[in-house]
């Protein structure tokens, strides 16, 4: 039976994993390679590494982090942040990632989705969408959530899928960092609009939140960052809770 994926996300700034609420009050949460390995051994189905560095000049540092993290990681590994052109994606694959997540660059140049998918396959392209409830409905924001685009998140997800995206990583900006549950309405609307998998993100606080986003949100996967750091909630415990609630998960693993 196909299981629901639990994805651990590492936000990386200047080569270190950081944790904060809405990109503020960042605290050091460790070395990316060590964090990824420990999440993988606790039962994470996948690792996403997002480069949130304020300065974009340090691609080489980032690639070195990807290389080190990938070296002993044998589960799917996605890297996002600062990927603006095909060559950036190629460098990340060369460093050992299997998928790239593209966000602002895809909104600015949707052809980038098709280009990367054409060269590396759709399964390698995750389009990340940051959505927020506004007067326009669910609106797409870019540049780390700072810039409104006026675009509808559901329509953009559909377009991204049509252009060759393999998965959608959907973050609710309203819920991000709040730990008060995923935005299941947003997730369901996008999941119903596309045939590719939708990864729900933003708001994970408890096992019940995951159950809800898999059931009523129809998410294929759910991603969380902060609840997996500092041992606040063990991944293994989460998976056991999900299994007990009747959600198919990869456990034991």
């Amino acid at each position, binding site marked *: *039976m*196909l*299981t*629901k*994926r639990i994805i651990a996300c590492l936000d990386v700034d200047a080569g270190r994993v950081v944790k904060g609420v809405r990109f503020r009050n960042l605290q050091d949460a460790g070395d990316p390679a060590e964090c990824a390995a420990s999440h*993988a051994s606790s039962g994470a*189905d996948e690792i996403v590494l997002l480069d949130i560095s304020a300065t974009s000049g340090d691609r080489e540092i980032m690639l070195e982090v990807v290389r080190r993290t*990938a*070296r*002993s990681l*044998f*589960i*799917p*590994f996605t890297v996002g942040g600062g990927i603006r052109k095909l060559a950036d994606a190629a460098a990340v*694959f*060369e*460093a*050992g990632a*299997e998928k790239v997540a593209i966000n602002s660059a895809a909104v600015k140049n949707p052809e980038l989705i098709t280009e990367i998918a054409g*060269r*590396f*396959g*759709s*399964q*390698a392209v995750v389009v990340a969408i940051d959505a927020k409830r506004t007067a326009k409905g669910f609106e797409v924001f870019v540049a780390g959530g700072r810039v409104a685009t006026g675009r509808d998140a559901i329509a953009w997800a559909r377009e991204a899928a049509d252009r060759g995206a*393999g*998965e959608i990583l959907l973050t609710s900006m309203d819920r991000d960092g709040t730990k008060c549950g995923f935005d299941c309405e947003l997730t369901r609307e996008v999941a119903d609009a596309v*045939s*590719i*998998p939708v990864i729900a993100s933003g708001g994970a606080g408890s096992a019940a939140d995951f159950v809800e986003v898999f059931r009523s949100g129809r998410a*294929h*996967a759910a991603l969380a960052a902060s609840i997996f750091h500092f041992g606040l909630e063990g991944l293994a415990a989460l998976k056991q809770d999900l299994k007990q609630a009747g959600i198919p998960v*990869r456990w*034991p*693993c």
Partner: protein
Amino acid sequence: MIAIVDYGAGNLASVRKAFGHLGAETVATNRADILAAAQKIVLPGVGHFSTLSALELGGLRSLLLGSIRAGKPFLGICLGMQWLFEGSEECPEVAGASFFRGDCRKFPPSVQSPHVGWNSLDVRNSSRLLKGIAETPFVYYTHSFYAPLVGPTAARSEYGLPFTGAVEQSNVFGVQFHPEKSGDVGLQILKNFCEVR
């Protein structure tokens, strides 16, 4: 030396990394002399079945067919496994190797396509490739077309219908899932392939 066929179908880094972790030496190549000299051959591949048409260039296809017939251990991964069948409705113009009967087909409309994620694997006991893996193994899939169940099917998964997850017959092995991304289970499978004689 294990030769990983490089025919322009995406990213070979993960497969090489996994073999390297197991202490196996690999070379990514499309050169006939290197493929001929290698002890084993891995045919990876992602994406569209039409990508396999690149094997026609430089006589790669007939070279691979010849190596397999000569008994060289061969592992097809994902699209590389599908190639071992007769063909795929994804691209009927491109012929498969026809080592196994049947065509690859699109998943039925009752399920969403692509099939992405960790699925359970129902293993036939006699498999050499899958020996020693966990009792309830999960493996990572990402594909839109599936290969049918055949006599040599070594393991099946279910997604709307049962399909071939792994296939094996003497020196010919194929896996639809990605062992290089399937954690300890996947590494054990690659290790088993390394140990095939």
